[in-house]
């Protein structure tokens, strides 16, 4: 499910089935030299989130992406976000990010970190297979949580 009115209606009717929230976290670099890489990884992350959404539409809700800039305090940001998400009806909460800083932060829920892959110049077929490979890496974390 996506965070839009139509999917939210379905969610509200099928709450017992859609128990997982996926929260994309995007770091927006503001230094000119790093903007390209930042945009590229944001592109990758959003493509991956929508691919996950397509595969697991009936089980996950992909929230709007949360973005932050370099000087924002991640520990404050993460604890606020995580405690709000913990109050939500979702039983499993996954944070999806390409920013390695999140690996050293403890939040309620699971942080799924993966290295960004520049997919912007790939043709549709290659992009699809890359995203599929990435999802396979993440799949054990999801199924493990769901099996509980």
């Amino acid at each position, binding site marked *: 499910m996506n965070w839009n009115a139509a999917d939210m209606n379905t969610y509200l009717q099928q709450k017992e089935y859609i128990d997982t929230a996926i929260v994309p976290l995007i770091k927006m670099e503001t230094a000119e030299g790093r903007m390209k890489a930042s945009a590229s990884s944001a592109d990758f992350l959003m493509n991956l989130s929508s691919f996950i959404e397509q595969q697991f539409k009936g*089980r996950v809700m992909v929230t709007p992406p949360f973005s932050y800039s370099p000087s924002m305090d991640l520990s404050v940001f993460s604890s606020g976000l995580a405690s709000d998400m913990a109050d939500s009806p979702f039983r499993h909460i996954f944070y999806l990010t390409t920013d390695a800083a999140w690996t050293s932060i403890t939040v309620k829920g699971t942080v799924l970190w993966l290295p960004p892959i520049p997919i912007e110049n790939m043709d549709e077929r290659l992009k699809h297979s890359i995203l599929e490979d990435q999802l396979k890496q993440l799949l054990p974390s999801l199924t493990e949580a769901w099996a509980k």
Partner: protein
Amino acid sequence: MSSKVSRRQFLNYTLMGVGGFMVSAAAMPMIRFAVDPVLATSAGADFVPTDQKADDVTDTPVRVDFTIKDRKDAWYKSDVSNTAWVYKQGDTVVALSPVCKHLGCTVNWGADDTHPDEYYCPCHGGRYEKNGKNIPGTPPTGPLDQYEVEIVDGYVHLGKTMPNQLVK
């Protein structure tokens, strides 16, 4: 005298000419609108080519990825990646949509080790038989949709989805 056009005749002709022109200007769009439904091209004819050769299709479903180019969603144009499960039933090629009828996850053939000859939905354990029939007792309420299939030059082309016609 008779070869000359009288003033009255001349006025008649011009009035008739101009009047006829004005009437036709009003009537032409009406006629066009009236026959428009007949002239409209049907949108159902959009078949998308895939890389799958029809001869290579067996009775075991294989995954076929295809891309719909330039799909228009309001003003937003995009390429949409799509998937189908394709197998042969007798001599006809059957293509099933991978979208689970429960809540829209993507199903996979043989993904569940305990039921290798079924489609399996990873979200809530929905299962389908090879022809798309949902297995009672699992969450889905209906059979998987079917794609319109066309074989062009030996390759499988896929059209729109339609309700499953294999399951009785």
